[in-house]
C-alpha cells in the first residue's frame, strides 16, 4: 500500500559531527543469558525492548505484524546470545543485527517493503541533536552517524535507502536514476567506511577519519 518509488529528493538527512554524545553499555547481558542466568532475560527486555519494538514497528505494515516480528526477534536473540562477543561490538548493535536479519527475512517472505511513511520521518532526523536525546544506546550508532556525515550526499542517500529503508539495490537505482553498479559500489564503500570508523572508534581514535 505505501508507494514504492521514492524520489531522491525526499531523503534529506542532516548529519553533523558535532554534539554527538555516546552512552556505552557496561554489562554484557547477553553473555549472562548464554550462561543460563535467567534474571538477565528480564534485564535484556527492559534495556532493549524499546529498540526491538521501534525497529519492528518501522519495518512492519501493522501492529500485529510488528508484534509477531518482535517475538521472533527475541526468540532468535535467546538462541544467538552465545554468539555475542563484546570485542566485536556493543550489545545494541548485535541485537540490531539480529533484528535486521529477522525483519529482512520476513519482508522477503511476504514480498513487502517497510512502512515508508515512517521512514520519511525517521530519515529527517537531525543528527545535530545529541544522540542520547534520541534514545541511543550504542556508542557505535553515534560513530556510524558520524561516518555517514563524512560521506558525500549521494552516497549517504544510497546507504540510507538501503540500510534504513530496506530498499533493494534495484529499487534504489530506479529511485535515484543511478546505474545498478554505482549503487552497489556506493553501498559497499559506504558500509566499509562506517565499519572502518567503528573499528577506529573501538581502538580509541574516533575523531579524525578524514574524507575518503
Amino acid at each position, binding site marked *: 500500500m505505501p508507494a514504492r518509488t521514492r524520489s531522491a529528493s525526499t531523503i534529506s538527512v542532516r548529519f553533523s559531527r558535532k554534539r554527538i554524545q555516546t552512552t556505552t553499555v557496561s554489562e554484557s547481558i547477553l553473555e549472562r543469558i548464554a550462561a543460563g542466568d535467567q534474571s538477565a532475560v528480564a534485564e535484556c527486555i527492559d534495556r532493549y525492548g524499546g529498540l526491538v519494538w521501534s525497529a519492528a514497528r518501522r519495518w512492519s505494515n501493522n501492529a500485529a505484524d510488528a508484534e509477531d516480528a518482535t*517475538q521472533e526477534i*527475541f526468540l532468535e536473540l535467546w538462541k544467538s546470545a552465545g554468539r555475542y562477543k563484546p570485542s566485536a*561490538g556493543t550489545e*545494541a548493535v548485535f541485537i540490531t543485527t539480529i533484528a535486521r536479519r529477522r525483519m529482512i527475512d520476513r519482508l522477503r517472505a511476504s514480498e513487502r517493503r517497510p512502512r515508508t511513511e515512517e521512514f520519511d520521518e525517521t530519515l529527517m532526523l537531525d543528527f545535530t541533536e545529541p544522540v542520547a536525546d534520541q534514545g541511543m544506546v550504542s556508542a557505535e550508532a553515534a560513530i556510524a552517524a558520524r561516518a555517514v556525515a563524512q560521506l558525500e550526499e549521494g552516497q549517504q542517500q544510497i546507504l540510507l535507502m538501503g540500510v534504513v529503508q530496506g530498499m533493494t539495490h534495484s529499487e534504489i537505482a530506479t529511485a535515484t536514476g543511478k546505474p545498478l553498479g554505482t549503487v552497489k559500489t556506493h553501498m559497499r564503500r559506504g558500509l566499509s567506511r562506517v565499519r572502518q570508523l567503528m573499528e577506529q572508534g573501538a581502538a580509541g581514535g574516533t575523531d579524525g577519519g578524514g574524507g575518503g
Partner: protein
Amino acid sequence: MSSGRLQDLLVRRATQALTEDEREELESLLEKGTNVDETAFEFAAAALHLSALRIDEPLPASLRTAVERDAAVYFSAQPSDNGDA
C-alpha cells in the same frame, strides 16, 4: 575474483535478503577460508540503522508478557548443564 563476489554477497546480506542460491554460494565462499570479516558489513548496517532509529516507544506491556512467556518456554526446554560459568 571470488573476493569481489564475496564482498558483493556480504553487502547484499547486510542490506537485503539473499536468495537460496546466493546463500549457498556465500557459505561455500566462506568455507574456503578467507580473511574477510563476514560480519563487518552487517554490523556497520546495524549501527547505521540504530543511528537513524528513533526509540520513542517502550515495548507494550502485553507484548512484553508474551516475550517473557516465550523466553520461559524456550529456556525450560534447554538442557540445564550448569557445570561451569
